[in-house]
């Protein structure tokens, strides 16, 4: 994996490693609950919450709080805007890696 000292045209919101991990996981599904995101990204609860809020502020993710039976459940979904941003990021990242090679 390349070192992440990349050009300025990269989307800073996604480029940050913790948020990149969150968005990468969400890109592989329709939605994921908080527990899955915790396990898949191996981030602690506080950091995950903080970065999810940041992503929600720019409308990259949609957070829905509800219940599954009697248990509270937080579901997170990548919005169309977030998905587009991630696709663009992947494309730029690949191009960057190709140029480094």
């Amino acid at each position: 994996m390349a070192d992440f000292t990349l050009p300025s045209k990269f989307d800073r919101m996604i480029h940050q490693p913790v948020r990149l991990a969150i968005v990468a996981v969400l890109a592989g599904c329709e939605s994921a609950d908080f527990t899955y995101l915790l396990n898949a990204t191996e981030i602690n609860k506080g950091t995950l919450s903080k970065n999810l809020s940041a992503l929600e502020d720019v409308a990259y993710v949609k957070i829905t709080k509800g219940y599954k039976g009697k248990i509270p459940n937080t579901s997170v979904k990548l919005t169309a805007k977030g998905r587009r941003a991630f696709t663009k990021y992947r494309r730029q990242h690949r191009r960057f890696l190709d140029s480094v090679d």
Partner: protein
Amino acid sequence: MDDRLDFEELTLQTRRLDFEDGLTDLQVGALFLVMSLGAAFFFSTAGITWFARALILQREITLVALAGIFGCFILVAFGSRRLIARVRREYLWKERGEIVPLPWQVEPWVNVLAAAVFMILMMLGLWVVLRGGSENEAILRLLIAASGVATGITYLGMGSSLRLNRYLPVGIVGGLLSGVLFFIPLAFSESWLGLGVIWTTVLLISGLYALRRTRLSMFEVNHG
């Protein structure tokens, strides 16, 4: 979190989740079986005779019953997804958390390739039949065989794009055996049955293998 983040792998890992425990294979295999048994009966001489007689005697009831059967099939397909979600939530993914899988799991190029192979096989078969090189029933058999081959290509493509190794033999074996159906002089209804047996068996083996692996890894996690 790992310092060297492989975000492509994180996406793939999440996409693979729906197939990892084998339950989806078992569901698709069961649907293949029900569909092929239904088609085998419907296109058999007995089925056609029964349907024609029912239409003459009770037209409206027969058509409503037919629509009801299709409705039930769709309900069972969606119902089984809910059942799988529940099994995962309560038994398999208890600690891991849940995802809702993407509605599309196959890359567009795989679908295009599968559709292209299907079309090419159909045109080739039509050309052979029109030149008198084969009996007319062969074109109907080809429809079944080409569908099976296209399904095999879809599984191969999924195996390759999701890096899910067990789908490579599933695609190759299922696709090849489906292709063989064309060369066996079976009636149309029997070919449907053949297709159902092939894909149900292949997916059953794949699903049970994956489910066993999942249970073993769960056992390891729970018992150190």
